[in-house]
């Protein structure tokens, strides 16, 4: 600790340069943490699905619908305990920027299949009993300041785009697993069906199976059954289904990691350049310290500590700035990244990278300081 002041005065002797370098590191770490959090959020989204639930959708794409009549046969498939269905509504509240995921579901069977949603019994009853009722996640309620019983309207570009769809919020769910997300919006499929003059059809079926080990057999039975029909199916576990949706974004993970790596090296070069300049300006002082008895090892450590301090301060600003910024504003990536959060593991990784940046950028000037020939340097200065 007694050398802390020496490190500090050296860091602050050129304040503008130190501040700019620190801010560069902060910006880079902010970016790294943001990109990494996109990855972890998408990875979490894959984990939402259950292995005991399966999804049957159109074999070509999820944008094609399946006939309602499939329900009657699906419930008879051996190993299937219950069946429900849902539709992507794509409803817009006020403005497209207020996006949140919303679904029309066969409510009674759907809620029975999703114990991840905890709903007070009286609210659940109220939701099930009313055709225009909505079930809303607690996070979404908080985001828009909605209250129970409040009437809201959505517009859907894919379902009767000219009309407003009025809903009354009758129930609020809290997820048992944060990864499930607390920003989803559900309403009755019947309401959609009637509101579209009975044009609506199920977007996908959700099947609860008796044993996850039966998943492959169930999928094969169903897909084989509809192979030659007008709407051939693709059946998979809900987890695989979620992964498929996530991969629709493309290879996001690779892209995020590639950008993160590029940023890391750019900032490494910047920080290293700063430290080289700072060290070069002080060669005579290093020589004087050696004359006073400062060892090569101590000087190496002091220069390294200075570099690491700059990047660690930048790291703290960037990492915790990102954590505060995203969590303080409830950022959800325009609804594309529900439950977006900067995890502590990501923050820790960010700080570890900041430390590595400091050590990597300081190692060359630290080595040069340690190896500095004193007599020759003093002769040059004198």
């Amino acid at each position, binding site marked *: 600790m007694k050398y802390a002041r*020496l490190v500090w005065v050296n860091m602050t002797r050129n304040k503008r340069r130190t501040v700019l370098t620190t801010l560069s590191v902060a910006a880079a770490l902010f970016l790294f943490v943001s990109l990494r959090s996109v990855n972890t959020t998408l990875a979490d989204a894959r984990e939402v699905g259950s292995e005991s639930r399966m999804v049957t959708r159109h074999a070509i794409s999820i944008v094609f619908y399946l006939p309602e009549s499939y329900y009657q046969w699906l419930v008879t498939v051996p190993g299937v305990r219950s069946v429900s269905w849902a539709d992507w509504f794509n409803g817009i509240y006020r403005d497209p920027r207020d996006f949140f995921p919303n679904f029309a579901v066969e409510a009674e069977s759907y809620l029975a299949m999703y114990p991840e949603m905890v709903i007070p019994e009286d609210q659940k009853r109220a939701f099930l009993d009313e055709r225009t009722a909505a079930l809303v996640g607690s996070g979404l309620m908080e985001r828009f300041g909605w209250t129970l019983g409040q009437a809201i309207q959505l517009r859907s570009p894919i379902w009767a785009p000219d009309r407003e769809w009025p809903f009354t919020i009758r129930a609020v769910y809290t997820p048992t697993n944060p990864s499930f997300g607390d920003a989803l919006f559900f309403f009755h499929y019947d309401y959609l069906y009637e509101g579209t003059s009975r044009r609506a059809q199920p977007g996908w079926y959700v099947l609860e199976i008796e044993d996850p080990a039966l998943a492959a057999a169930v999928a094969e039975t169903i897909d084989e059954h509809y192979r030659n029909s007008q709407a051939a199916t693709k059946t998979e576990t809900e987890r695989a289904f979620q992964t498929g949706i996530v991969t629709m974004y493309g290879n996001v993970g690779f892209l995020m990691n590639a950008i993160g790596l590029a940023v890391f090296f750019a900032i490494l070069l910047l920080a290293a350049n700063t430290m080289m300049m700072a060290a070069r300006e002080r060669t005579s002082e290093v020589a004087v310290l050696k*004359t006073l*008895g400062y060892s090569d090892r101590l000087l190496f450590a002091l220069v390294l500590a200075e570099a690491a301090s700059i990047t660690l301060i930048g790291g703290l600003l960037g990492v915790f700035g990102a954590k505060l910024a995203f969590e303080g504003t409830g950022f959800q990536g325009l609804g594309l990244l529900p439950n977006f959060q900067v995890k502590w593991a990501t923050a820790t990784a960010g700080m570890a990278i900041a430390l590595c940046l400091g050590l990597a950028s300081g190692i060359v000037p630290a080595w040069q300081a340690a190896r500095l020939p004193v007599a020759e340097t003093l*002769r040059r*200065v*004198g």
Partner: protein
Amino acid sequence: MALLEIRNLSKVYQRDSQMITVFEGIDLDIEAGEFLVLMGPSGSGKTTLLNLVAGLDKPTAGTISVGAAEVTEMSPRQLAAWRSRHVGFIFQLYNLLPVLTAYQNVELPLLLTHLSKSERREHVMTVLEVVGLSDRADHYPRQLSGGEEQRVAIARAVVSDPTVILADEPTGDLDAKSADEVLTLMQRLNGEFNKTILLVTHDQRAAERGHAVMHLDKGVLTG
């Protein structure tokens, strides 16, 4: 036995393919408590000799011992530790760290010791008192005159109570009045505190303050 013993000391530099002999076969003894002045023209090797005594440079041949320490036999790490305890170095251009106050500059050698903060403070204030700058402890080098800066540098050199003080042209950058003050201070360190001093200078007035004067010229040391 002398405190500082130099035996058969040689220093040869290589510049490109050319070998330059600075001096060869020098012998010198300095007794404890002696104030020896070393004079000589520029390029005669005075500063090189000081650097060798301080272990900042390696001789081509010969030995240097200070007390029981064989300086020429030590590793760089041992030399650093030895310098921190036994050598006080005073430079012509003071070489204070500009970002530290006078107090902090003087404290630098003590950071290498096991002294507590309060003990360090006591030592620093005592030595600043000796050099007459206790009231300038919180001033930065840029706020001090050249003479004051050199007195701070002297305080830094003696704060760890070294065995020997090596001064390289300490008055070379000072006006006559400041130079006189610095020389008086060095005389006092030698007289009152029994410090052994080896002072390198061009300045005849400085030479008059020492117990003895030696000349180094063309690689030959004469008394």
